[in-house]
């Protein structure tokens, strides 16, 4: 109950803060916030699979990177407008997600993770060799273009509000999916797959559908990143990115809807602000991650939610528990 009552004011504060960011350029750098927003959408989309369906995909970089390359290629070489480029990036990623998902869900657990990793490596080598990607030099100089043909996106502030809007829609889709009958079926699959089958749900179809949705949203996140930085690079499809998104999700809390968003912000901030430490940055990130895994098993948001729940409403439960234990002892 208390968590619920806190959620609304907290989200209002968050939204106001996000809207106000462009007015304080001396405090926080706008392009960094946009990059973080892309990872926020990516991590929340990924968590549809990991947190809400219980599927660990170790190949999500394939979707993120495909979105980036397809959007970048279309916008740069075919003069496709910004919005269509983003949509195409998402669509191609979703198609790829449907194909890889259909193959991968034939197995589960570690085998599924290995299949997705293998498939994403295939995709990686495709982009390494394809002539339009520029291999390790990247697909450079993607024009930002205009939004709806009116707003010039070369202006960082304008682009920021557009990105914020698109990411907000993406996050709404994630939230709506989780809080829908469809989302409940997903949780049923996560908790007890045989029971979900016995209840008559076509589990495989549900899994492919959520895989496609997650991949499509990841593709949109990647496409946005390509437009923001005006380039798509191999790192976006590299398995490191697949690892990064798992790290973000675990750090934020995989049993929450927007926990991965917080995780994404933490990882992005660590990478950004620890820069002056040079070679030490990877060591510091590793230690922070170890500390988080040891101290907050449910992720930052998950742990926060648990603390808030423990505070008041649980007290009567505890007192009610004790006599029960006392009774069973003798």
């Amino acid at each position: 109950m208390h968590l619920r009552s806190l959620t609304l004011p907290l989200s209002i504060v968050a939204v106001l803060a996000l809207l106000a960011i462009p007015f304080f350029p001396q405090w926080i750098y706008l392009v960094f916030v946009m990059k973080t927003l892309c990872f926020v959408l990516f991590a929340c989309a990924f968590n549809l699979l990991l947190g809400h369906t219980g599927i660990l995909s170790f190949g999500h970089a394939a979707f993120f990177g495909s979105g980036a390359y397809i959007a970048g290629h279309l916008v740069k070489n075919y003069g496709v407008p910004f919005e269509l480029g983003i949509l195409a990036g998402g669509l191609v990623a979703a198609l790829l997600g449907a194909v890889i998902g259909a193959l991968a869900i034939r197995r589960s657990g570690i085998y599924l993770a290995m299949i997705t990793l293998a498939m994403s490596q295939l995709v990686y080598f495709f982009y390494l060799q394809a002539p339009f990607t520029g291999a390790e030099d990247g697909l450079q100089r993607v024009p930002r273009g205009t939004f709806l043909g009116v707003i010039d996106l070369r202006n960082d502030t304008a682009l920021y509000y557009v990105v914020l809007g698109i990411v907000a829609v993406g996050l709404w889709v994630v939230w709506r999916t989780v809080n829908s009958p469809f989302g409940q079926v997903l949780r049923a699959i996560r908790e007890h797959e045989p029971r979900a089958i016995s209840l008559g749900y076509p589990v495989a179809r549900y899994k492919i559908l959520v895989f496609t949705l997650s991949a499509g949203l990841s593709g949109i996140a990647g496409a946005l990143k390509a437009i923001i930085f005006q380039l798509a690079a191999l790192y976006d499809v590299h398995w490191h990115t697949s690892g990064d998104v798992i790290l973000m999700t675990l750090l934020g809390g995989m049993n929450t809807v927007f926990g991965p968003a917080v995780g994404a912000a933490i990882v992005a901030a660590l990478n950004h602000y620890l820069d002056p430490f040079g070679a030490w940055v990877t060591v510091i990130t590793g230690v922070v991650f170890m500390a988080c895994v040891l101290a907050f098993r449910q992720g930052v948001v998950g742990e926060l939610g648990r603390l808030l729940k423990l505070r008041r409403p649980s007290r009567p439960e505890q007192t009610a528990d004790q006599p029960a234990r006392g009774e069973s002892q003798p």
Partner: protein
Amino acid sequence: MLAKLPSRTAALTSVVLALGAASGTMASNGFSDDVVRIGVLTDMSGIYSDLSGEAAVEAVRMAVEDFGGEVHGVPIEVIYGDHRNRADTGASRAREWYDNDGVDMINDLSNSGVALAVAAVADERQRHAISNSASNIGLTNDYCSPYVTHYTYDAYSLAQGTGKTIVEDGGDTWFFLTVDFAFGIGLEQQVSDVVREAGGHVMGAARHPLDTTDFSSYALQAQASGAEIIGIASTGADAINAINALSEFGVSPSQRPAALLLWFDDIVSLGLDTAQGLLINNAFYWDADEGSREFSERFYERTGRMPNMAHAGNYSSTMHYLNAVEAAGTDDPDAVSEKMRELEINDFFATGGYIRPNGRMVHDQYLWEVKAPDESEYDYDFLRLVATISGEDAFQPLEDSTCHLLNGG
């Protein structure tokens, strides 16, 4: 946020070299935010951290100190950042530096992907960028800009230096061991063109993925090709592994390996036993003359290592930029760009060097042979000069450049 320096030792952290006590109050006209700020964007933690990295930052600091720490009474500041070999990280850091932190010039830019991305940002924001350790000739072709300078070497000069000289020496059949990346393939193609033009033959190529450790099958392919020269179109760890394999399989004494981009540090790690007889193209060698020895010994004292050509280029290009700022009397990018292209570069690194309109710094390149262990008389006495390639021959002729600045557009 500013990528300020971490506090290590008092000597290292004295970044703002405001030697003139009153300089802060003298608001000189023409200097943006009363400081000339140089950002060193390099690889601090990845595969190129050894060949540029912290030592590159140190080279730039040395140049600033030798310059006197201030120009027209305005202090010069050095900051650094890590691009982690990711074009997006590099581009966003560069953007932030130009937009928020008042950085006037970015130096080093190891990794071609990062260099191209930062060149695009520099062109858009109209600030300076100088690349010393990237090889991609796109920087002076499609991506050229009045604010971008490609200083030490490029893929074209590597191909000219090594390819042409070796063919003229009689090594006219070639086989390539190429890293399967845009860098390796580009280098292989350029050297092949040069070899064919000079009347040589290319017998074939074996392509290996990045970070290959087992070169046995590639070494055998090279052996089976029967080519006299085995061109190694990779760098760093891959090149080291390839050279080791060629030596272990007994390929190398009879068929001669030519490393197309080997850094001085790579020879240190290979050791003379393995590396002897290798031909390498480097724009700088610490023991070349009095000037380079003087710089290198001071560099060695500060970093514990001998400088390679990128470090020397970092120093020389920073010095040249500061000279241009002094001559222009402002840090206005357009005025500085004009002066940079006008002034000649004469120091331990280059003699009569100059910057072409497309940003290419033209200076002599050298082909070196690695000495045998018994020829080496003192520490780091590794190389013998084989040939000097004049700047005009070493770099891409202006008429071949696709740079848009050249045809009035």
